[in-house]
């Protein structure tokens, strides 16, 4: 099943990868953003003051929901074939969440690949990048993607595709605003922080995620299909 879910998205990965490469090239070549900061822009952890940065961030959220959509549709809409086989609504939502976590890893992987390719194209010094900082960014970016994906799932349980699309747009616009004001440790976006703050931030983000998962499960069990 895991393999099938990954395989099902194969065309979307291609499209996503190309879009990400174009975005990175734009950010690095035209805007002159630093290597890792370009990744930070995609995750909304960089002050998004210029139009191009805003577009890049909105684009990355859009791509994320685009990748998630197929599995969500398959498990939440007209899902009787799965539901009766798993025997419990809870099992089905656990499965969906598992695949969402997985697809988010794929998304981070695609960002890494796209970043690598663009860095080579732009002749950046990849080996000069601080490994610790890169890992930190990747991990916190993943957490941020999970937070957004779960909002998408909750919205799809509660409403329909069109409303979810608007919700995600609203989330990305909110993200743009939040990137420019300091909300410190309560943010889900991987902005630069001192190490102690970052640990507290990670803890708070985990709480967000646990709360979101709890909501998903509660709401899905009440839902009728």
């Amino acid at each position, binding site marked *: *099943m895991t393999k*099938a*879910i990954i*395989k*099902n*998205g*194969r*065309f979307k990965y291609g499209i996503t990868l190309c879009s990400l490469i174009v975005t990175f090239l734009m950010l690095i070549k035209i805007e002159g953003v630093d290597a890792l900061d370009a990744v930070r822009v995609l995750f909304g952890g960089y002050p998004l003051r210029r139009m191009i940065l805003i577009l890049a961030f909105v684009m990355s959220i859009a791509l994320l929901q685009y990748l998630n959509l*197929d599995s969500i*549709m*398959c498990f939440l*809409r*007209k*899902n*009787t*074939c*799965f*539901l*009766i*086989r*798993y*025997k*419990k*609504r809870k099992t089905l939502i656990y499965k969906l969440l598992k695949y969402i976590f997985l697809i988010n890893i794929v998304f981070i992987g695609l960002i890494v690949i796209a970043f690598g390719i663009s860095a080579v194209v732009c002749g950046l010094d990849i080996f000069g990048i601080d490994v610790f900082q890169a890992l930190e960014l990747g991990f916190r970016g993943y957490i941020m993607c999970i937070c957004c994906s779960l909002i998408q799932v909750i919205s799809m349980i509660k409403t329909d595709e069109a409303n979810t699309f608007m919700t995600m747009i609203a989330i990305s616009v909110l993200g743009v605003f939040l990137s420019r004001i300091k909300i410190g440790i309560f943010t889900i976006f991987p902005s630069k922080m001192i190490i102690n703050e970052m640990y507290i931030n990670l803890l708070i983000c985990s709480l967000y995620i646990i709360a979101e998962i709890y909501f998903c499960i509660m709401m899905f069990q009440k839902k*009728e*299909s």
Partner: protein
Amino acid sequence: MHIKVETLTKTLKDCVVLKDINLDFYSGKIYGIVGNNGSGKTMLLRSIAGLIRPTEGTVSVDGKVLHKDISFPPEMGIIIEKPELLEQLSGLENLKILADIKKSISQEQIIEFMKMFSLDPYSKKPLKKYSLGMKQKIGIIQAIMENQKLLILDEPFNALDESTVVMLRNLFLDYKKEDKLIIITSHHADDISILCDEIVSLQEGIMK
């Protein structure tokens, strides 16, 4: 298997879609549910399958009450509307995903079923590019492939060609001999009169 529907009422947003339904279904029989569009046929099937909660009344399978003792009837195969599967994968891959959950049948058995419905099991064509009738066939195969004892089929003959309809009718009659319980809705008087032992007629959610 004995399914008992007792004083089943379902209200959706102040609109009564099923009202005081009392029915018994037994193994070894085929039941037909008829009625105009919007008369509540699909809703009745959904309630029997445990997909929606009754506002009042109960559905029980061999004495076990749905939503209380069990979530869904055991060994049930179901097709209600067009199932949403993974659109970028082929028919065989999709059926394999479903079969993998229970692991009760092999890939060869799935291939047999696909051949029986004259679908090419080795075609790489994604489900997205299947025609309506081909998707319907996949839907029916997933409902019957695991030798389910209870079949709940909402307009199974929709969009199917004549030869498949004839083949399916015979298949269902065979299943009846194997002591399976089949509940069908259909718009065609023919399907119902040839297949069904008992007919339930619905009008605006009320049994006639």
